[in-house]
């Protein structure tokens, strides 16, 4: 199906594209009701493949630089590519905005998603599970480590005030929460976790300059694994807006939480990992 066929159909009916396609589909056009499995980016028409990119080339702004930008766009799979904006930034650099249709197809069947591996519990259920099966308070230590002073993440999860309408972990009667705040050094965090007998350690990392969040997290997990005997390491949980889903193993932690995580999700996860009766043996040992 070509763009012009669809446009003709739209012109004929004077309808909004979506409306037109539901009521007057063109033969061969993908149905609105069954998206995928093969998709392309959407500009204003299904299948148009339109994307926008902006970038800077280390070239003075002239015809050659514009040609170079288009060459790059072509190599990125944009065909045809439309150079909509070019601006000199000083004598040595040019900034470009390019629109174009990408030739690539995306097969949504090949996309892998990390599904939530634990059931979501309400706060009463969390408290009850801890009381019934742990028989003591669940101890959680939280901190921003390294030089990260952005406590917004850890506070959203821990402070009573909470986040997204959910109360933070301090609100849970059966949890003991120690929030160490910002700029906590890793040895201090390990020491505090040991002192209070932490079941779980929550670390938040917002600053990502030069991959500080990755560096800090691997330092932290290594320190815990060195300081505690195998099987007694607290559950290590890290959160922040720029962590990749599924990077837990690479970071040496048990779970990574991304942007938009709520306290209830974290509490449910902690119960799932630390409290819920297990059908398989806990690789971290019995004394959890």
């Amino acid at each position, binding site marked *: 199906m070509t763009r012009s066929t669809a446009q003709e159909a739209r012109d004929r009916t004077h309808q909004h594209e979506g409306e037109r396609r539901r009521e007057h589909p063109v033969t061969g056009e993908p149905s609105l009701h069954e998206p995928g499995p093969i998709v392309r980016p959407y500009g204003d028409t299904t299948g148009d493949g339109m994307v926008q990119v*902006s*970038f*800077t080339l280390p070239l003075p702004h002239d015809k050659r630089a514009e040609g170079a930008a288009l060459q790059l766009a072509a190599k990125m799979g944009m065909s045809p590519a439309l150079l909509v904006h070019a*601006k000199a*930034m*000083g004598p040595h*650099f040019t*900034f470009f905005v390019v629109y174009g249709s990408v030739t690539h197809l995306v097969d949504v069947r090949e996309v892998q998603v990390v599904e939530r591996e634990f059931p979501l519990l309400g706060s009463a259920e969390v408290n009850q599970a801890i009381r019934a099966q742990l028989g003591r308070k669940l101890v959680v230590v939280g901190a921003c480590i*390294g*030089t990260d*002073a*952005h*406590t*917004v993440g850890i*506070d959203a999860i821990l402070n009573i005030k909470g986040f997204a309408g959910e109360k933070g972990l301090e609100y849970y009667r059966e949890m003991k929460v120690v929030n160490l*705040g*910002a*700029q*906590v050094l890793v040895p201090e965090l390990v020491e505090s976790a040991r002192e209070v007998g932490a079941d779980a350690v929550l670390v938040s990392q*917002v*600053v*990502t*300059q*030069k991959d*500080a969040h990755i560096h800090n997290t691997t330092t932290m997990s290594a320190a815990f694994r060195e300081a505690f005997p195998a099987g007694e390491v607290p559950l290590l949980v890290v959160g922040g*807006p720029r962590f990749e889903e599924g990077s837990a193993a690479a970071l040496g932690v048990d779970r990574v939480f991304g*942007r938009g995580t709520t306290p209830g999700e974290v509490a449910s996860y902690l119960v799932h990992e630390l409290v819920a009766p297990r059908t398989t043996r806990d690789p971290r040992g019995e004394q959890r």
Partner: protein
Amino acid sequence: MSSRRPALLDLDPAVVRRARSLARKAGKPVVDLARAHTTVSVERATLRLAGLSGADHDGTPWVNHLVDAVRDGVGLEHGVTTPVWDALRRGEAPDLLTLAQKASSGSASFRLPEKRDLTASRTAARKAVAKGIRTVDSQRRARERMVAKVGDAPRTPWIYLIVATGDIHEDIPQAQAAAREGADVIAVIRSTGQSLLDFVPEGATREGYAGTYATQENFRLMRAALDDTSRELGRYVRLTNYASGLCMPEIAALAGLERLDMMLNDSMYGILFRDINPIRTFVDQRFSRQVHARAGIIINTGEDNYLTTADAVEAAHTVTVSQLLNEYFAKEAGLEDWQLGLGHAFEINPEVPESFRLELAHALLARQLFPDAPLKWMPPTKHMTGDVFRGYLLDGFFNLVGAMTGQGILLVGMMTEAVVTPWLSDRDLALQNVRYVMEAAGGLTEDFHPPHDGLIQTRARQVLSEAVDLLDTIVSDTSTKGSAHPQPLLAAITDGTFGAMKRPPTKGKGLDGVVVKADGYDNPATTLLDEGATR
């Protein structure tokens, strides 16, 4: 710098006076506490003013060696200078550097001189330190001369841009490029973690982590480069660094010696966000502010940081309280109004109804409360989501508040905040944003008069009255009366009043570097700064 005078908010002058007098009441006991103590960093700064620089082959500065040796030998309660110049007079070493080198290997002995020896040592110390103070004075005159000769920033707000590559030799061309693109002020962000180093690194450095180390040589190199660019552009480009962390006094001294123009220097930032001991901070703070006052340096305070941890609407009054405290501490240390870049920020959640009007109210309140201070207006960070397009709009509104309320220093917001360290194109787009708003709406200060008892006026009065209430609560807190730390402000910091951080005076980094002054304590730097003397 001339500041625009926007429409009045109809603040009750009696409430404003009360706010200032409460700030004084809260601050005074802390100043007394600061005057009763010294710190290792204050003593090291004094030695730096006397000309001691350099480090051993491991990078430990000679000032650290010498202060540590004196502390081990006779203690620091009398100040480092008296035992040091006594040792020089006794021929322990021919000069300060050699003495420090000998002290580092334990082969110099120190004592507390008495009578004529005491007087003579003090005189010699004063003479040496006065030389450094005169260098600071001559750097201030050099700045004034250069501004007069090449010209000043053409308008306010001054456009403030950050560079931070970690490598001073990369920073220099970036800073020069930023200046050519329109920056009036260049800030070189420090390497992550420098605030917690209890020494100042030495030499030109090329390996910083998300920033470049503050060193005397880096200061010198960057200032020299910006002097060239200032001449090229026909306007004086100011240089900013950070007098904060455990070495705040030393960095202030180096800034004075190397003619930096503005320094980040908040009265409580280190306590709250770096977990530095409160007493250490207040002692270091007072000394560094005295140096800044003398050097003609504009300080930038860090109230924007409170709003990164607390809600910008709920905690708006804590910003005002901190500004009032910063003003009190600054003036007590000798800084003048034109040197007070009091901070505040555009951090209200854009989802909050009327968020822009509330921002205007808060910004106008700061403008009206401190009419002669330049004020530093900080861009949104907390609600920059990674949606760079929305971020660009938010930065535009931030710039508009800056234009409408006559801010003195505008830190340019990046749409890629919280995404990447700014790219060349981010900076260029951000400057276009600022230029557009300033040229399109800079004159709005003339037309913009919030209506009597409208939302803006009412909100500003509400924030001020909440600030007065909070200050009142702080100074009337008698729960720590009779304890080791009865100062109500310290109690408030312990309770987490500011930035929701709880910081007791008995904890925090750098506490072991705090020393109670003895009766015979002498510090020629403090004396010269107190007296305004040059010899």
